[in-house]
C-alpha cells in the first residue's frame, strides 16, 4: 500500500509486455561504448585523475562537433528566414536575402513555423529536382518523385516500412552490405524484417562483387522473400566509392532478381581518392537504357548532414523514388503524412544547398573557398589516417576513398580474444573499451557494423582537426603495441 492507501499495482509496460522488436534494436554508434565515454567525461569534470585530459570522440560522423565550420552563406539565409526583420540589415548580402525571401514566400504565412505539406514544400522539391538534373547531366527528375524528409534516415526507415510484409517464408528479406551502417540493421530488427547479409571484399578495397550478391540471395530464398537491396555509396563505414561498372552490375542484378534498390548516397560530395568518382545510381540507371530505366525500382537518399555542409542538427534530407507503382506511391505519400512534415528549417537549408551562390553573386567567392577548404581538409585527413594506420604493425587499413571514416582491420592476439569471450564481450569491443579507458579515445567496434567471422575492426572518423587527428593516431599506435605485447 502506498501512503495514500493506493494499492501498488503491477506495471502495464514490462519487459514481458513491451514490443519485442524494440528490445532487439541496437545502434552501436551511440551504444555502450559511447555511454562509457560520456561517463568518463563526467568523471574528468569532477576532477578524477586519468591518463588523459579529454575524451576524443571519433565515433560519430558529426563534423561540426569536431570543429568543422558551417558554411557562412547557409547560416545567413537561415537566420534571415528565422527573423525576417534582418532583411533590412545591410550586413547581410543581397544573394542571401533574395534566397530567404523566396523561401519565406513558399512557407505558410511567410514563416518557418508553419506546417508544410508532408511531402515537403513544393518549390523546394522543384529546386531539388533541378539540382538532381544538373548533377546527372540532364536526366529528367520529377519534383513529384521527391520526398523531403527529417534527414535521410527517416526516409530510409519509411521506405523499409513500405517494403516489409509477409510472414514466415514470405517475410520480406532486405539485402544489406556487411559492414553496414547500423541504422539499417536497427530498422530491420524493429520492423521484424529478415536481414540478408552480403559481404564487401576487404581484400579488394571493400568492393562489391555481384557473385557475392548472388550467393547471399540464393541462400536467403530458403527462409524469406528477398525484396530489396540496400547499398551505401560512398560507403559507411568502409569509405569505398563504387566504380561505374559495379553500379551497372548491381542494377542489372536488381533487375534480374526483381529487387527494389535503395541507394544511400549521403556522402556523394565526399570523394577523395584519385581515380574515384561518384556516380549516382539514378544517372547510371538511365544511361543503361529503357530496358532498365523504365523497370528498375529505385529510391535514392541524400541529406544535409554530411558532405561539406555537416549540418546534422538541422535534419534536412530527401529521397527520390523512380518507377514506383502509382498505387504504392500513393501509399507512400499517405505514410509520410503521419509524421506531419519534415522540420522546415531543414527544408530551407536543403533549398540553399541545392541553390548555392553562383559565380556572378556576391557570396560566391567566400562560399567556394569554404567548401573547397572543408573538402580539402577531409581529403588530407583521409590520406594521413590511411598512411599512419598502415604503418602500425597489426593494423591494416584500406584506402579511405570517400565518406568520413576508416574501418581498419586489427589483429588481436589469441589471449585477448579468449579473455573477451570469457567476459561475454566481442573482442573488438573489448579492445575499444580498453582504448577508451587507457587513452580516452572513443571509437566504435567493428562488431557494431558487421564483419566476417574471426575478423576484427574498429570504425574511426577522420573528423578531428588535423593536429588532434595525428595525436589520436599516435595514441592508437602506442595502445596497439602495448595491447599486443600485453596479450602475447
Amino acid at each position, binding site marked *: 500500500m502506498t501512503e*495514500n492507501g*493506493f*494499492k*501498488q499495482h503491477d*506495471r*502495464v*509496460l*514490462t*519487459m514481458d509486455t*513491451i*514490443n519485442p*522488436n524494440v*528490445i532487439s*534494436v*541496437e545502434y552501436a554508434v*551511440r551504444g555502450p561504448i559511447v555511454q562509457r565515454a560520456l561517463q568518463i567525461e563526467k568523471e574528468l569534470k569532477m576532477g578524477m585523475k586519468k591518463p588523459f585530459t579529454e575524451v576524443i570522440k571519433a565515433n560519430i560522423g*558529426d563534423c*561540426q*562537433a*569536431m570543429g*568543422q565550420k558551417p558554411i557562412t552563406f547557409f*547560416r545567413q539565409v*537561415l*537566420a534571415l528566414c*528565422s*527573423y525576417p526583420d534582418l532583411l533590412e*540589415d545591410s550586413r547581410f548580402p543581397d544573394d542571401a536575402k533574395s534566397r530567404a525571401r523566396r523561401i519565406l514566400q513558399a512557407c*505558410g*504565412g*511567410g*514563416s*518557418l*513555423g*508553419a*506546417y508544410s505539406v508532408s511531402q515537403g514544400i513544393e518549390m523546394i522539391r522543384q529546386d531539388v529536382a533541378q539540382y538532381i538534373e544538373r548533377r546527372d547531366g540532364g536526366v529528367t527528375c520529377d519534383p513529384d518523385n521527391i520526398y523531403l524528409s*527529417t534527414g535521410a534516415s*527517416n526516409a530510409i526507415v519509411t521506405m523499409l516500412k*513500405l*517494403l516489409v*510484409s509477409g*510472414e514466415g517464408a514470405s517475410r520480406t528479406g532486405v539485402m544489406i552490405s556487411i559492414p553496414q551502417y547500423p*541504422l539499417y540493421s536497427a*530498422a530491420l530488427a*524493429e520492423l521484424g524484417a529478415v536481414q540478408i547479409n552480403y559481404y564487401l571484399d576487404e581484400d579488394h578495397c571493400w568492393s562489391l562483387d555481384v557473385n557475392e550478391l548472388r550467393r547471399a540471395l540464393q541462400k536467403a530464398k530458403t527462409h524469406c522473400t528477398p525484396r530489396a537491396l540496400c547499398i551505401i555509396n560512398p560507403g559507411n563505414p568502409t569509405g569505398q566509392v563504387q566504380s561505374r561498372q559495379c553500379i551497372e552490375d548491381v542494377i542489372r542484378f536488381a533487375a534480374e532478381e*526483381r529487387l527494389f534498390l535503395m541507394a544511400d548516397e549521403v556522402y556523394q560530395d565526399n570523394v577523395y581518392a584519385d581515380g574515384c568518382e561518384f556516380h549516382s545510381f539514378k544517372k547510371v540507371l538511365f544511361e543503361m537504357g529503357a530496358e532498365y530505366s523504365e523497370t528498375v525500382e529505385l529510391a535514392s537518399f541524400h541529406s544535409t548532414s554530411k558532405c561539406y*555542409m555537416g549540418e546534422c*542538427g*538541422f*535534419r534536412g534530407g530527401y529521397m527520390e523514388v523512380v518507377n514506383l507503382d502509382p*498505387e*504504392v506511391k500513393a*501509399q507512400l505519400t499517405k*505514410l509520410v503524412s*503521419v*509524421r*506531419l*512534415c519534415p*522540420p522546415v*528549417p*531543414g527544408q530551407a537549408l536543403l533549398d540553399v544547398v541545392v541553390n548555392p551562390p553562383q559565380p556572378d553573386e556576391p557570396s560566391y567567392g567566400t562560399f567556394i573557398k569554404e567548401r573547397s577548404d572543408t573538402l580539402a581538409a577531409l581529403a588530407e585527413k583521409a590520406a594521413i589516417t590511411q598512411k599512419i594506420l598502415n604503418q602500425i604493425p597489426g593494423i591494416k587499413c584500406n584506402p579511405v576513398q570517400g565518406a568520413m571514416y576508416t574501418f581498419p582491420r586489427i589483429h588481436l592476439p589469441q589471449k585477448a580474444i579468449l579473455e573477451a569471450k570469457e567476459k561475454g564481450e566481442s573482442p573488438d569491443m573489448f579492445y575499444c573499451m580498453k582504448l577508451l579507458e587507457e587513452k580516452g579515445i572513443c571509437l566504435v567496434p567493428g562488431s557494431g557494423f558487421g564483419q566476417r567471422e574471426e575478423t576484427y575492426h574498429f570504425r574511426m572518423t577522420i573528423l578531428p582537426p588535423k593536429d588532434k587527428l595525428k595525436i589520436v593516431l599516435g595514441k592508437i599506435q602506442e595502445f596497439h603495441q602495448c595491447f599486443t605485447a600485453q596479450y602475447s
Partner: protein
Amino acid sequence: MSFLKKIKPVAKNAFHSEKDILSRHAARITAEIQQGERKGYNEVLNLSSGDLHSMGIKPLTFIRQVLAACFYPALLQDECLPLDVRERAKSLLKECEGGSVGSYTDSSGIAKIKQGVSKFISSRDGGVPSSPENIFLTSGSQRGLMIMVKLLFQSKDSSWQTGVLIPVPSYASFNLALAAQGIVMVPYQLCEEQGWTLKVEELHRALRSGRTTCNPMAIYICNPGNPTGHIQSKESIKEVIQFAAEEKLLLMIDEVYQNCLYGDRPEFYSYKKVLSEMGSTVELVSFNSASKGFMGECGLRGGYMELVNFDPTVMQYIRNFFYTEHTTPVSGQIAVDLMANPPKPGDPSFPIFSEEVESTRNTIRNNIHRTQKVLDELPGISCQPLKGGFFVFARLHVPPKAIEWAKNRQMEPDLLYCLHLLEETGLHVRPGCEFGQKKDTHHIRLCLATQEEIMEDVLQRLKTFHLRFMKEFS
C-alpha cells in the same frame, strides 16, 4: 507490375481517401483563382489545421531572435538584438557540441534543455518533482505518441493485438498514427451534451467491449481537448487515474494545449500533478509541444514527453531505442527551451514578449466570443463552451432532407456540407466524420487562431452559406 502492390496490409488500410477530397478540392480552387477564373471570393480561407502562422498570427519575436542568433552566431555581437536574446543564444550554443546547432545532440535531447523542461514542469505543478532523466525531447508530440505506441505494439503472432482507448471525437492525425502502427483503436464517446466531458462509466463500457477483441493497454486523453476545447475537471482526472489503476492501463496524456486557456480562472490541471497528489503509481506519459501554445512553431518540430512510474529496465530500453531516433532537430529543441523558459518580468524582452502573447490570446478569445455569438444566432448549428485549445467543434443539426441528399451522394452529410461550403464560399473547414462522432450526429471543426478581421470574414461566409443550406433543405 511491382511486387510492392502486395504492400503491408496495415499501411494500406490505414487511410481513407475521403479525407483528402477536401484538401484536393481546396488546392484545385486555389489554382483556378490564380488562373483568373472568377469565383464569389478572392481566396480560399484555410481553417483546417491548428497552424497559427499560416493563418496570419505572427511568431513571437524573442523566439525568432534567439533562433537567428543560434543559426548565425555572428549576431551575438549585434547590439540591435536585446541582451537577453544574445545571452540565451550564447548559453544554448554552449550546450551544443562544437558550439554549433549543426551538430548531433544526445538522443533524448540537450541535457540543459531537459533540465529546463523539468524545472518548468515542477514549477507548473506547484513543486512536484520532475527528473530530467524522465524527459525526452521529440520532434513534436505526434512523434512522441508514435514512439509510445510503437513500444506497446505486439506483432500479429501474439494472441492479442494491443489496443488503446481513444476519445470520440479525436484528432485525425493521431488516429492515422495508431492505424499505421497496427494498434487497435477502442473508442470511448465524450459526452457532448455536457460540454464534451469524459464519463468514467463510458470508459468502463469501452474497455469491456475492447477486451473482447484486443488487449487494451493504454488510454489516450487529450486535455485540453482537440477538437472539443473541453478541459477536464480535477475530479474527472482523479476518476480516470483511479480507473487506470484498477484496470491496469497506461496513461497517455496529450497536454499540448495547456497554455491555450481563455477563462478568467485557468482551470487546467496536469495529470502529473493530480497523480502525485493521489500518490498513484499508474504509468503516465505526458506530451507537450512547441507547435501549439501561442508560439505556434509547428514547422520547427519540437516537443517533449515525460514518463513517470515506468519500470526502470523498460526506461533503459526506451533510452536505447531513442539512439536510433536520430535526434530531434536542434531548432525544435531550442523552441522547447524557449517554451519552458520564456522571458521573465525584468528581462529586456519581457514587455514585447508578454504583449505579443496577450495579443494572440485576446485575438483568439475574441474570435471565440464572436463565433459563439454568431453560431447562437443561427438555426441548425450550435457549439459547446470552448474552454481551451484553438478549435470549435460545432454541431450541425442536419435536416432530414439534407441527410437524404447526402445518402444519395454516398457521402457523410458533414463532408458534403464542407465540400459545398468550400466550393461556394472558399472556406476550408473539416467535417466531424474525420474525428469520429456519435452515430447520426454531424459536426464541423474550424480553427479560430487567426486575425480578427479574417475571423469576421469567415463567420460572414459561414453564416451566408449556412442560412442558405438550412433554407434549401427545410
